[in-house]
């Protein structure tokens, strides 16, 4: 087991290198760099633009830049943001915290909602619940997160029941609990949008795999022993159907960082979303690299957990570690 963990750790590190290197290369591909629009703001002379480029080492060849970056990683600040004149890590971490504050609960909640719902739908195959849910998911998949978010905003505006964005009220004075309530209150809408947006895929997978398991011999046999309905569904069928769901769960962890980007932008949630989106368009490359690495870490963690769970839930898979 220890050896297995170590090996996975090795892979993870290799992966991070791979991703960052690839990213550097890709950013090379995309036309323009951070300063390429500077000259349009008239006042800035080409000369000073050139000066800036050299100062930030943008004129250096790719390998040199990558090494420089690695070096800065060594010093704990993942490169340097051109726009902010600050170490990327110092910018990313606080925002990452806010993002996770929003996405982690959403991830859990959406699974907690979707799995039972999917199981029930599968067990009532063809029933009204099943139909309703089928139509529902299709409809949800037909709508874009942006649209949902915007609708939510308008709702907030019309009803006045929710804040129309942000994470805390301006004067969130008061005790810890008061602050928490305030944050939760602000979280409500973006959370709903995120959850609603992420339900459909989980539901669909749960349902389809459950359907497969539900008409297998052993489930019928268990039925034949009069095992209770819920026990049958959740204790017998679900574990047998878990396999793809587990993989899916692992993957969905990768979205903890990146998945809420658009919603954050529309709901002005002070997470990584707005900053990263801006950085992407502005070619503030180290910020982007940092963000991507962060989400890569979550992806790795997710897949790792998924693999472990696979082995736990599916004894048919031989642990090849």
């Amino acid at each position: 087991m220890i050896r297995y963990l170590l090996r996975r750790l090795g892979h993870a590190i290799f992966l991070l290198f791979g991703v960052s290197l690839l990213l550097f290369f890709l950013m090379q591909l995309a036309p323009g760099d951070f300063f390429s629009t500077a000259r349009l703001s008239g006042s800035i002379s080409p000369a000073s633009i050139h000066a800036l480029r050299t100062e930030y080492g943008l004129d250096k060849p790719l390998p040199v830049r990558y090494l420089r970056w690695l070096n800065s990683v060594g010093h704990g600040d993942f490169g340097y943001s051109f726009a902010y004149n600050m170490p990327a890590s110092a910018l990313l971490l606080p925002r990452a915290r806010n993002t996770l504050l929003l996405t982690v609960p959403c991830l859990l909640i959406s699974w907690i909602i979707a799995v039972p719902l999917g199981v029930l739908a599968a067990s009532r195959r063809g029933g009204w619940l099943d139909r309703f849910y089928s139509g529902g998911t299709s409809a949800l998949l037909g709508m874009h997160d942006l649209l949902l978010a915007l609708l939510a905003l308008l709702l907030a505006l019309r009803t006045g029941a929710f804040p129309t964005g942000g994470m805390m009220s301006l004067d969130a004075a008061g005790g810890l609990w008061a602050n928490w309530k305030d944050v939760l209150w602000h979280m409500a809408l973006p959370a709903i949008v995120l959850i609603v947006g992420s339900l459909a895929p989980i539901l669909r997978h749960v349902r389809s795999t459950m359907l497969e398991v539900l008409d297998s011999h052993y489930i019928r046999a268990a039925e034949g022993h009069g095992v209770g309905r819920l026990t049958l569904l959740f204790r017998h069928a679900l574990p047998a159907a878990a396999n793809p769901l587990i993989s899916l769960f692992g993957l969905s962890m990768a979205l903890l960082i990146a998945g809420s980007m658009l919603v954050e932008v529309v709901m002005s949630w002070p997470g990584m979303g707005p900053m990263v989106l801006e950085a992407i368009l502005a070619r503030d490359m180290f910020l982007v690299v940092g963000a991507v690495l962060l989400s890569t870490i979550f992806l790795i963690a997710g897949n790792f957990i998924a693999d472990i769970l696979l082995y736990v839930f599916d004894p048919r898979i031989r642990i090849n570690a």
Partner: protein
Amino acid sequence: MTSGVSDPGSAGASPAQAARLRMRGVSVDYVSANGEDISALRDVNLEILPQHVLGVLGESGSGKSSLSRAILRLLPPNGKIVAGSVEYDGKDILRLSPSQLRELRGAGIALISQEPALALNPVLTIERQIIDVLRAHSRVSKQEAMARTRAMLSEVGFPDPERIVRAYPHQLSGGQRQRAAIAQALICQPGLLIADEPLSSLDTITQAEILDLLRKLKREFNLTVIFVTHNARVLSSLADKVVIMRQGGVRATGTLEQIGAEPDDYVRGLIYPEKTLGRGISRAAGNASSSTQPSSAQRSLAQPLVQISNVSKHFVQRRFLSRKKFAVQALKDVHLEIPQGSTVAVIGRSGSGKTTLARCIAGFEKPDSGRITFTGGGRRNVQLIFQDAGTALNPRFTAEEAIAEPLDIGRQGTPAYRRQRALQLMEESGLDPAWAGRKVGEFSGGQRQRLAIARALAAEPEMVILDESLSGLDLPLQAQILCLLMDLQSHHGLTYLHITHDLSFLPQFADRVVVMDQGAIVDACSPAALFASSHPATRALVEASESLHAPGLEAVL
């Protein structure tokens, strides 16, 4: 034509007594995926009194399992009870609400399904699966449930259940699985037990134990049993009444003696195997001697096809991240020579390592130590016929695809040829070629076993390992298959390793018998000498086998 009413002659039952289960004109149809309708049961009338054991005897495919499933309304989605009524203690099962049905199942009527390998959930431990049944019907604390589970397991012949409870089905031997399934069915002390060939992959000793257990339960908890089997002998000592089935209908009912008396070849064929088998085998033997093949005597001297020298294999069974781990010594350095063109029978208690040995020879498992060498080096074409035919066939395949698979893989001949070969093999193994288009899931247990045999033969192997491959077949069929195998042997010098529990016909087809116990080969002798062997393990098996005979039966012969 069927006599629904229980006749006064039958032992123990007074006519006044109300029937525990009464089936009236039950018919079951299946719709095959390719659209054809299959009628599995036709207008079956049955009646069974409390505390009685009803033996159900019938050729493979005659509708026994359909009957069992129909009683509990457990037919597969494509199956349907098209007519009739099933009354249990007076209430019509077919009219029960889902919740009532759930209460009835397991607690009232319990079913031991024919193929435990399919009936057990592959991702749950045995304990979990038994406990859930128990707790579904009775309020018991977790501890008590665990205790009772272990108790029940030791009842069905697990001296120390600790490993078994923690094991997943795929970590058990065929017989162990079957016993687990039995335990699962008995855990709630049902009023009526439907046992669909519950002994098919159990050694004679365990068979005897299980039968004793049933008798005990019958006495103490006045259990009523519907006992589906091929083995008339078992019934002779157990059943109060016997039903003979054929092609979905009831052919005859009554006590074994009564039926045995009737002048009906089909029935007699089922009941008095010695005749049929005797005939069959002698025919085969005839061919053998007529052909130029060396006689069995010389055969035993022939050079070995495969040499197994001190092979050991152990399995480690542990739950993820749990300290508790069990090491199972499935094979303790095993020596065995299998002569070219001979038939070696392997017998031994359930869990003694027969299948493991087979899997090692066939190359599905790597021995921890020891060597398995084939003469002429390299691997020869060895075909293992899996113990659980049901799991060894891809449910997505049709019978024809399944049988032709080895040919497809080997890209042998034209598609037309493969098809024709597949059909021929079905024919030879007693399957109607008209069923070639059916999915393998749509066959009966025994039919699936034959599919597996046919598939193995299609590969045109040099050696075939049969792992209880005849256990699901009625005696005439067993005879037919054995003849087929022996023909092949005599013409193409096939070699057989035949794992079986049924000692009665060993002499007819085996050249040698090896006895396994706890992973080791403890005894090896000629079939004839088997019954005289002095080794305790062997003796135990032999005596148990004889104890299965009812005293009365020979008299009838």
